[in-house]
């Protein structure tokens, strides 16, 4: 049983690993160009562990923005994970609080997505091996990028850029095959996000928060209606 969990977690974690390495290398290269030390570069990825916000932080640092502004921006950019953790908290059942401290650290977009669409009960083993694969890819990629620069052929790095999107689509497909409602909500969310990004009025990271709030509210209306029909019909 546990052995199967290990296998499943490695299978699901490997694509995240592959997907995290190229942006992590890019982050390491950028960090070196910004003249921060290898230790600082490593710490960025090892203790913050949040892709987009790390790039934004380096860019802001270069513009001369102070730490207060950068930290506030980071809070805004990463706040979407609050909603993702809120969902995950309904899935982990009786996992003890001690483990929640580790689990929460590794809630990235991709880890959240894989965990969400894993239908079976989420075991500690599955969750932690999945997160460890993601974390390993991100941290080793960062250090490798800093130390070795762009050591992978450019064309390979470029094509690996598709991995995370391919992963998201692959885990979503079984859901779309069985639920018209899921299909409609996904398309609505994609459409709303495209619109909001074109509109370009919200701070970075908030387009997706609005998408989640709006689309999940609409979705919850349909779920409770369905349940009502089942109960009373």
């Amino acid at each position, binding site marked *: 049983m546990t052995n199967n969990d290990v296998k499943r977690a490695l299978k699901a974690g490997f694509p995240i690993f592959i997907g995290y390495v190229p942006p992590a290398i890019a982050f390491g290269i950028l960090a070196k160009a910004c003249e921060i030390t290898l230790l600082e570069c490593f710490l960025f990825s090892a203790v913050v562990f949040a892709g987009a916000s790390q790039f934004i932080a380096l860019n802001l640092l270069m513009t001369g923005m102070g730490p207060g502004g950068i930290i506030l921006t980071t809070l805004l950019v990463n706040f979407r994970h609050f909603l993702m953790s809120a969902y995950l908290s309904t899935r982990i059942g009786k996992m003890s609080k001690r483990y929640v401290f580790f689990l929460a650290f590794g809630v990235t977009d991709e880890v959240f997505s894989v965990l969400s669409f894993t239908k079976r009960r989420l075991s500690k083993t599955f969750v932690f091996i999945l997160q460890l694969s993601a974390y390993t890819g991100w941290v080793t990629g960062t250090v490798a990028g800093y130390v070795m620069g762009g050591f992978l052929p450019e064309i390979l790095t470029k094509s690996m850029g598709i991995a995370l999107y391919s992963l998201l689509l692959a885990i979503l497909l079984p859901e779309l095959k069985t639920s018209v409602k899921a299909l409609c909500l996904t398309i609505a969310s994609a459409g709303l996000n495209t619109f909001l990004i074109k509109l370009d009025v919200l701070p970075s990271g908030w387009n997706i928060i609005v*998408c989640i709030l709006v689309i999940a509210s609409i979705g919850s209306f349909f779920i409770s209606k369905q349940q009502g029909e089942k109960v009373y019909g």
Partner: protein
Amino acid sequence: MDNIIPLISGMAVVTYVPRLLPFFLIGSNELPKRVDAFLKCIPVAAIGALIIPGVFNAVPDAPMAVICGMGFTLVFGFWKGGIIVPVLGSVAITYLVLLLTV
């Protein structure tokens, strides 16, 4: 460059706390039906926005490579399912398209 360890620590805290807080706020309390239904919809509501429009820029300036790579994931994933083959296959196909077109 100044010492940026305090900056990194601050960023770590404001990233970690929102990831952690919901586990304590929601915990094991019984939730109202409506809230529970809302939470259950979060994954589907998030994933559409996580994929689109970002995917169109997944491989900068190579829309054809993106279409072929994601097309493979769509077709293979739809008929056969799985994760490893759809993902590695899409990377391989994107690679080939880039080789042939660039």
